[in-house]
């Protein structure tokens, strides 16, 4: 299938070269005085890197053994090993695709003509971010991994604060920087413990560690905190919504599509070290995952900020992936190949799916923001008529992310469901099928959230007058979106091939599981039927359409205003806005998310115009984190009195230290 690739010397070398190209993409722009060329050069380089890197990583994905290289460095942390096994290659693919698509999109979205001052830095750090993520999956030395990890985090930070004149952006940036740094702290502990265990900073070989010691518990939780905070598992998700909302859209696409996955990659990679991940770990991941998914989607349903909604839905998807992974671990621990197979496939496939439809939606949101000049969905509407192409592409993303056939989102959820159902035939751990209704609920709320998004943004009539930007975007912005949309549809219609793309990663992740045992059993034939039904569906749609057109042609078609139910003076402002659309649903989940409403109080017979403000609040942040922070700050403020400028007190400190040490010494 990939014999063509044999003409290349060595795919691994090729991949590394394309990583370097990506990393240096932004460099010329820094030195070119006149704006413009730099950005085009960067886009061209990134595309070239993708053209080299994607086939290379495909070849590596299907390669039998991992390619390993030693990086010669002088840091005293053992040899620095770079390796690309199928698992790494699997995570490499999205880096190249999304990276290239984003840099192409940037040409139209962040043209250096109108963003002279910020564009070079943005382009540079964008390339750096992509490259660091690609290097991350290759790193096999804890020290090197941490360095690349932090480069990734920092370049993401600098991308985020591109528009640092805005207070909101600054606060988001600070929040992000702090939480990512705390995550890195956890990783410091993790890698130190790992080194303490294995004696070197090189990653231990697969399955060489045993999970059955208390230290491992400590180690695993450190890893979960470190990587989970990057992936956005609740309650470590705090940084995520603000960050994705305030970054430029193609950056949000890269962050949400790929950077979150790096956290997941960390979890995957960590799990490969262990020969026997106990049930507890799987259960933890499953519970954390499903609760993340539920809370995330409910938060999403409550949002009125377009990009915040998308960000929270990223949390939801990460939750689904984590849950699937957790169940797969449960299956692995209970030697249930079928369960392992289906759920692992679901998790990995959903990683790809999310890396396709989420960037698509973020790019779409970029187009929308470009047009409407804001992120508040309550002020949008009717954009579908102004930019039909962008609208239909976004529609594809919306359907995909709701997990509806015939798009790719459905496939991964289908596999997950199937895995959970398959557990019904066994005798132990049947309770995990309780994830099924939870998942169904998530799906339902997702449908609501994204109907709301699509309806409020693209449908109906404009709720206010848009500026001249509100027109169909250029091809540089449409092409990437079209690419993602096509990919979503293809995976949805031909799932059996998508599964073939995933299986090498599964094998390299769990080499000890005999997936062949699961393969022949009827589950997979289902996928073939699925694609058949998908085509059938399209067929019927076409048929009905033709029938209807035939009827339409024979009778007059009249155009008129929408039927206002007898109400004469209907205006665009009277449409159901995003908030009112989700209001009743959100009120059902009142405990999890609060819809804060600041009602004006009216006085007198003829009150003057007043505003009623409503905004959803993140419960975790406002109920837990902020109070803790304030308490700590207060305590510190109290202790600062120790430094009160009184000389004799300082002398007393010295004297006391002296005495205490003397007493201690004797």
């Amino acid at each position, binding site marked *: 299938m990939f014999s063509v690739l044999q003409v290349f010397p060595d795919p691994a070398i090729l991949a590394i070269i394309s990583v370097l190209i990506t990393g240096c993409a932004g460099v010329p722009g820094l030195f070119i005085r006149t704006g413009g060329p730099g950005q085009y050069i960067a886009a061209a380089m990134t595309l070239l890197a993708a053209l080299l890197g994607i086939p290379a990583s495909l070849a590596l994905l299907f390669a039998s053994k991992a390619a390993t290289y030693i990086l010669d460095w002088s840091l005293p942390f053992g040899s620095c090993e770079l390796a690309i096994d199928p698992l790494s290659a699997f995570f490499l693919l999205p880096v190249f695709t999304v990276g290239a698509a984003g840099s192409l999109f940037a040409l139209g979205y962040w043209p250096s003509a109108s963003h002279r001052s910020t564009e070079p830095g943005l382009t540079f750090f964008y390339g750096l971010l992509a490259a660091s993520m690609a290097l991350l999956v290759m790193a096999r030395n804890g020290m090197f991994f941490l360095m690349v990890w932090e480069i990734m985090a920092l370049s993401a930070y600098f991308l985020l604060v591109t528009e640092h004149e805005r207070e909101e952006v600054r606060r988001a940036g600070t929040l992000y920087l702090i939480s990512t740094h705390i995550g890195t702290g956890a990783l410091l502990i993790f890698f130190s413990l790992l080194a303490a265990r294995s004696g070197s900073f090189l990653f231990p070989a697969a399955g060489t560690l045993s999970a059955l010691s208390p230290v491992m518990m400590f180690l695993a939780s450190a890893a979960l905190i470190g990587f989970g905070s990057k992936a956005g598992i609740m309650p470590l998700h705090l940084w995520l919504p603000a960050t994705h909302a305030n970054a430029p859209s193609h950056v949000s696409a890269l962050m949400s599509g790929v950077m979150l996955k790096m956290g997941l990659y960390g979890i995957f990679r960590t799990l490969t070290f262990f020969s026997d991940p106990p049930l507890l770990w799987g259960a933890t991941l499953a519970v954390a995952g499903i609760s993340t998914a539920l809370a995330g989607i409910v938060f999403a349903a409550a949002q009125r900020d377009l990009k915040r909604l998308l960000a929270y839905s990223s949390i939801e998807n990460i939750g689904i992936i984590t849950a699937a992974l957790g169940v797969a671990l449960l299956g692995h621990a209970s030697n249930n190949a079928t369960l392992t197979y289906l759920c692992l496939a679901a998790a990995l496939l959903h990683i790809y799916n999310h890396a396709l439809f989420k960037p698509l939606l973020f790019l779409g949101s970029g187009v929308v923001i470009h047009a409407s000049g804001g992120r508040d969905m309550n002020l949008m509407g009717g954009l579908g008529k102004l930019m039909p192409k962008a609208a239909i592409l976004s529609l594809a993303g919306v359907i995909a992310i709701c997990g509806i056939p015939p798009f790719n989102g459905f496939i991964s959820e289908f596999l997950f469901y199937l895995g959970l159902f398959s557990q019904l035939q066994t005798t132990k751990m049947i309770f995990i099928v309780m994830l099924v209704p939870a998942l169904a609920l998530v799906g339902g709320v997702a449908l609501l959230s994204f109907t709301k998004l699509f309806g409020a943004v693209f449908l109906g009539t404009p709720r206010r007058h848009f500026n001249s930007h509100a027109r169909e975007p250029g091809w540089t912005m449409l092409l990437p979106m079209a690419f993602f949309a096509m990919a979503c549809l293809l995976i949805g219609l031909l799932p059996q091939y998508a599964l073939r793309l995933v299986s090498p990663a599964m094998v390299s992740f769990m080499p000890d599981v005999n997936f062949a045992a699961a393969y022949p059993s009827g589950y997979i034939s289902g996928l073939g039927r699925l694609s058949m039904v998908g085509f059938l569906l399209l067929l019927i749609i076409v048929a009905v359409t033709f029938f209807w057109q035939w009827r339409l042609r024979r009778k007059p078609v009249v155009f008129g205003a929408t039927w206002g139910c007898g109400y004469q003076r209907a205006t665009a402002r009277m449409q159901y806005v995003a908030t009112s659309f989700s209001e009743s649903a959100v009120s059902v989940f009142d405990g999890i998310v609060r819809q804060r409403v600041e009602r004006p109080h009216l006085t007198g017979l003829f009150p003057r115009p007043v505003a009623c403000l409503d905004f959803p609040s993140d419960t975790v942040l406002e109920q837990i984190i902020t109070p803790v922070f304030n308490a700590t700050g207060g305590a510190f403020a109290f202790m600062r009195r120790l430094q009160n400028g009184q000389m004799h007190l300082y002398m007393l400190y010295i*004297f006391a230290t002296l005495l205490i040490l003397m007493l201690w010494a004797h």
Partner: protein
Amino acid sequence: MISLADQFLVLVLLINFISLGTSRLVFSIRAVAAQGVILGILPGLIHPFSWHLVGITVVIIAAKGFVIPLLLNRAVRSAEIKREMEPFLGYVPTLLLGALFTALSFGFAGKLPLYPEHQNYIFVPASIATMMSGFLILTTRRKAITQVVGYLMLENGIFIFGLLLAEAMPVMVEAGVLLDLLVGTFVMGIVLNQINREFSSLDTSRLTSLKEE
């Protein structure tokens, strides 16, 4: 001779108590000056005669007995302050603490393994007690001058201990002494007068603008 040295050391201890107890700056300055003079004489009592020794004695007496007290007095006069008002800790408690520390230092010195020849001196306890008193003043008084006095007392304590090493490593001891004198004069001579210019007062409780709110 030895007994004489011990009597002088007892005198030193008494002076400690005086300066711990008094509230009049001028008086405590005189007390420290007297202490300096006594310390200047001490080497002569325990070591055989040598011109080198004479030199040391003269320098110490001149500096500790006259130069520094003069500087301090000038500072006091220019700042027109007579007494240490509102000390951090009252005089009586300070005295009691001083007594306690002196007693402790005698006990402590008894435990320490001493060079046989020094067994029957009270050099070690005296020096420790003097340092302690110095620290007491530093930690309980607010005015810059009194703190300088405390610092000087600390130095005196160290000097007393240094006498035990005088013949073992004279250079070291002298270097120490001279450097302390340098610091002393430096602090007193320059900084105090600068403070005077800035604050027209030597009350360190005024020197508390640098702190964490």
